[in-house]
């Protein structure tokens, strides 16, 4: 039984990071209806920038965490400004293909740096002892990761509920024409959506980097797993992204805990999300919390 609870604990840890990463994805989709295929690369870039600041420049890790988030914030904003601003009004299919191109460009840029081939790990700044809690033990890094995720998601929800900018972003996602007519700058909101997505992606990247080490393959795979998460949650629902993130984390942990090695299977955690994704697309395409506005064709 304690094995079960151990799996639940680590599932929640992984799942909350999925939730954070999925949040950024949903933000971009909600505001501009663009699927950002390059999300995994932004996650990786955020983690690598943070590491470069602390490991190579020598800035203390707490400070570099914030600096890394800020840099990724502006990086994502400039990506929107340079590449996507020109394509407003073009068919959505070509915008999505531009993000595929972006994914390839960022891949290439990351391979140019040592991060593409060498694995790094963040300096240890938390106690390395395990916290045992009724037979379940998790590390300090995981605990802090979950806490940071929870704080950030709460912060984002408050931001969208209370602040003027947040409310204008919600307005744009609801009706672009109407929000333009009451004086909201729609392109600026798109830029902000990308920037906040970059922020949450970088945070997710840093947390994974702290837990598993900085491996480009892992971070990239993590970024692609965000797709099943957001589809499960419904592409345009933040609550859905959080719930589906945790569900997906649990499914992955149970898969690797119970399926692997039992029926001659291995690595099921990598493939199960995609199988679930295909099944959801066939039977419940708007996900758990998505708006039912998807038209049947």
């Amino acid at each position, binding site marked *: 039984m304690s094995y079960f609870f151990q799996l639940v604990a680590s599932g929640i840890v992984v799942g909350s990071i999925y939730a954070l990463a999925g949040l950024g994805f949903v933000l971009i989709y909600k505001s501009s209806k663009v699927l950002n295929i390059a999300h995994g690369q932004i996650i990786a870039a955020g983690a690598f920038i943070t590491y470069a600041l602390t490991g190579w420049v020598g800035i203390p890790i707490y400070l570099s965490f914030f600096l890394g988030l800020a840099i990724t914030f502006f990086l994502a904003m400039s990506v929107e400004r340079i590449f996507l601003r020109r394509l407003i009004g073009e068919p959505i299919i070509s915008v999505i293909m531009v993000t595929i191109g972006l994914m390839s460009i960022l891949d290439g840029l990351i391979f140019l740096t040592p991060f593409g081939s060498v694995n790094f790990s963040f300096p240890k700044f938390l106690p390395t002892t395990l916290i045992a809690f009724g037979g379940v033990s998790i590390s300090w890094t995981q605990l802090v990761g979950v806490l940071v995720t929870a704080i950030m998601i709460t912060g984002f929800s408050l931001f969208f509920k209370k602040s003027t900018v947040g409310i204008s972003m919600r307005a744009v996602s609801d009706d672009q024409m109407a929000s333009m007519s009451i004086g909201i700058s729609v392109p600026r909101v798109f830029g902000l959506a990308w920037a906040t997505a970059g922020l949450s992606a970088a945070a997710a990247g840093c947390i994974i980097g702290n837990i598993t080490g900085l491996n480009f393959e892992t971070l990239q795979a993590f970024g692609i797993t965000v797709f099943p998460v957001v589809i499960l949650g419904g592409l345009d629902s933040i609550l859905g992204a959080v719930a589906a993130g945790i569900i997906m984390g649990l499914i992955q942990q149970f898969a690797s805990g119970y399926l692997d090695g039992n029926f001659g299977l291995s690595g099921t955690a990598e493939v199960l999300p995609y199988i679930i994704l295909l099944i959801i697309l066939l039977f419940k395409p708007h996900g758990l919390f998505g708006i039912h506005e998807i038209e049947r*064709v």
Partner: protein
Amino acid sequence: MATNRWLATGNYFTSYKDEQRIYFTHLDRTIFSAFLTLLFVWPFFFSLSNKYMLVIDNILIAMVAVIGLNIVTGFAGLISIGHAAFVGIGAYTIASFCRVIGDSHVIVTHVWPLLILVAGFVGAIFGAIVGLPAMRLKHLYLAIATLSFQMIFTWTINFMNFFDQGQTISVGRVFWFSGKVGRKEHYLFWYYVILVVIVLCGFMVRNLLRTRYGRCLSAVRDNDRAADAMGIHPGLTKVYAFALAGFFAGVAGALHAYLYRGVGIESFSLHESIAYLAMAIVGGLGTLNGSFWGPAAIMTLDLQVETLAEKAGHLLSSNMNLATALKPFSFGLVIVLFLMFEPRGIANWWRIVRSYTKLWPFRY
């Protein structure tokens, strides 16, 4: 494709049949057949080294695959980020024959044209399965469905012992009427085979586009509700587009397996899928001759990048592989630049050049 000279100053067709012709004048037909003859004859006068022959064969195989991708992305307007997986399905169909009956069994070495066709049909079946969500969904979701198919495909091959966990599975040398195709003439032999396949595929697609089934595709792409009102089932049309794309991809995969005399998972990764997409975009989505320009352009770029990386690698003298960095970078840059500045691709340049030369020295 033939230039439509009649349309230069207005439309002079008197029947729909006239308008649907492939060749509009005898000159068009002559030029086209001369060009084809040239493609078949040049190896008798020049002999290229195996290295360059391999490059040309690769370009031709990519053309077959991109014709398929162009059907699904260009004509039907559905993004496919898993095209390399469909190519892989074709290649692994050949590989499973080799695993079951041995890589130099008579079926693999003598009846290979049939096997290539079988691989195409297996690809079509998988294409239809992946396209099934299209019955309910629009293109955004389909892009993710194809991406997940790519991931599932890679995982399955890496997992299964039957496929040697993605290690190279060897495929035997084939026989022709003149006997076994040896190492010397291997690439030349496959050049001819692939060329024939491309000519067949080209005519297939060209003819498809003037039938009801081909025009269905662009009707659904342009406005699926209007298409629905006209009695076309949009969902089934999309499934059928995926099946067609799967067929061409499967044929390309089988040719790849025979050309390399082996099948390994690294040729069918997500990066390859993006490379195919880049070829389709650069060539020009929704045009048939774009499917020929795109692979040629991207493969040449690929080759140049590789040489550049080799040269720069000596200068930098670092241990990292510069080519792995520069290749995705250049592909991505090409995709983005073309989509931003020339969304109609090289096919559009070709159109401009052609209309310019046709009217020269007059402006219009």
